């Protein structure tokens, strides 16, 4: 039985080359093997959205992907969203200011999800922000402050124009 496979992947810009159990989820791999516990594991069947990470710049549920499927991929977790100098990103700062988190459990998934939205659309309507986070459950905030944070971040990122750097190392589109 092939219990382990060797994988090579990049997580938050850092290369990893390691063996991994073939039935381990990407979420468990990030948390247990790489000790990156910022990715939260809620329902473990794709409903709550807490484990959302970026796989090659696109959101994916880390509980529904096997770690071996991330072989060769570029992964960004919540730990990789801050600016290079470790100050909060525009989106994270907006979350802080608008009280878009209380217990913080859903926050990693909310941030990765909205990072994808803002990388593609710097001028989202409230409706579009709402729709973007339909796949992420939050039991504290009632969502309103999260939507506010998304819109505030978009507004600030528009004002910053080309100065703004996305977590993917380039100017936002």
């Amino acid at each position, binding site marked *: 039985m092939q219990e382990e496979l060797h994988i090579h992947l990049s997580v938050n810009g850092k290369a990893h080359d390691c063996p991994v159990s073939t039935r381990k989820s990407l979420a468990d791999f990030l948390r247990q093997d790489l000790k990156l516990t910022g990715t939260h594991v809620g329902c473990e069947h794709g409903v709550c959205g807490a484990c959302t990470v970026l796989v090659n710049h696109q959101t994916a549920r880390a509980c*529904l992907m096997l770690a*071996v499927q991330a072989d060769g991929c570029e992964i960004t977790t919540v730990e990789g969203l801050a600016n290079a100098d470790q100050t909060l990103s525009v989106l994270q700062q907006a979350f802080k200011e608008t009280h878009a988190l209380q217990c913080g459990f859903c926050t990693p998934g909310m941030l990765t999800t909205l990072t994808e939205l803002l990388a593609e659309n710097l001028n989202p309507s409230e409706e579009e922000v709402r729709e973007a986070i339909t796949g992420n459950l939050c039991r504290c905030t009632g969502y309103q402050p999260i939507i506010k944070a998304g819109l505030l971040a978009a507004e600030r990122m528009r004002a910053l124009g080309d100065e703004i750097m996305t977590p993917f190392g380039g100017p936002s589109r």
Partner: protein
Amino acid sequence: MKPARFQYHRPTNLSEALEMVATLENYKILAGGQSLMPMMNFRFAMPDHLIDLNQVGELVGIHEENDRLVVGAMTRQHHIHRSELVAKLCPLVPEAYDQVSHRQIRNRGTLGGSLCHLDPASEQPCFTSALDGNIEVQSRAGSRTISIHDWTQMYMTPALGSDEIMTRVSLQPWLGPHGWCFLEYARRHGDYAIVGVAVMVALDAGQKIERLSISLCGVAPAPLRLSGLESALVGQAGDKRVLPAVHEHIEAIEEIMHDAYNSSIYRRHLTQTLTARALGIAFERALKAH
């Protein structure tokens, strides 16, 4: 670890994968994994072998071929949703994908995976039925094509042999001016539809219905194509005068699904409301298309 033990296989081409399905026992094919992985995490599904098709590049792609829109089985739902070719040839499809789950799921989920999983409430078998989709499957012995209307054997069971892999699906775009509409009702955006309806309609110069296609999801174990109603309405005026006939036809559907949350009575009512609404929008679009 949540899933039960399995042996993981990662073929890099179709013939390797076909060899595996021909020889391995109790296997499951892993496409996007957005339904299978939850089932494995719950241990509803406990395959001995997991055959991951995500490295089989030949199963990915969207193109036009002999007036049909061809989509590779492993094409991600997000790519189909945003494809310009799909929007041009089959605008019903992106409208349906607006309602399909969440972005995180569509980034990974595939059309082939959805058509093989065959959830009765899924939008994807429904639009495939409305656009007279053909499903192409392959085994070591060769390939065959199955109409979507013969694809569902029973609840969540496609007509796929144990030695076969679905390779692509082709949809039939409507060439002349026409209208379309996909509507559904779900408790939360992105949830599976309680009821969904796909409508395609073409009107003649006198604004009479020339051609019509209506498919429902969430109503029966398979996407329900209302062909009886379609032929009854062809030649009728393309406006709200057809609605009483629509209402009556849906009233006469013998069996409508029910579960702990939604009764057949409610689903029937929802089907009547949504079909009438979708027809109204499709008629309007068909008029504008002229």
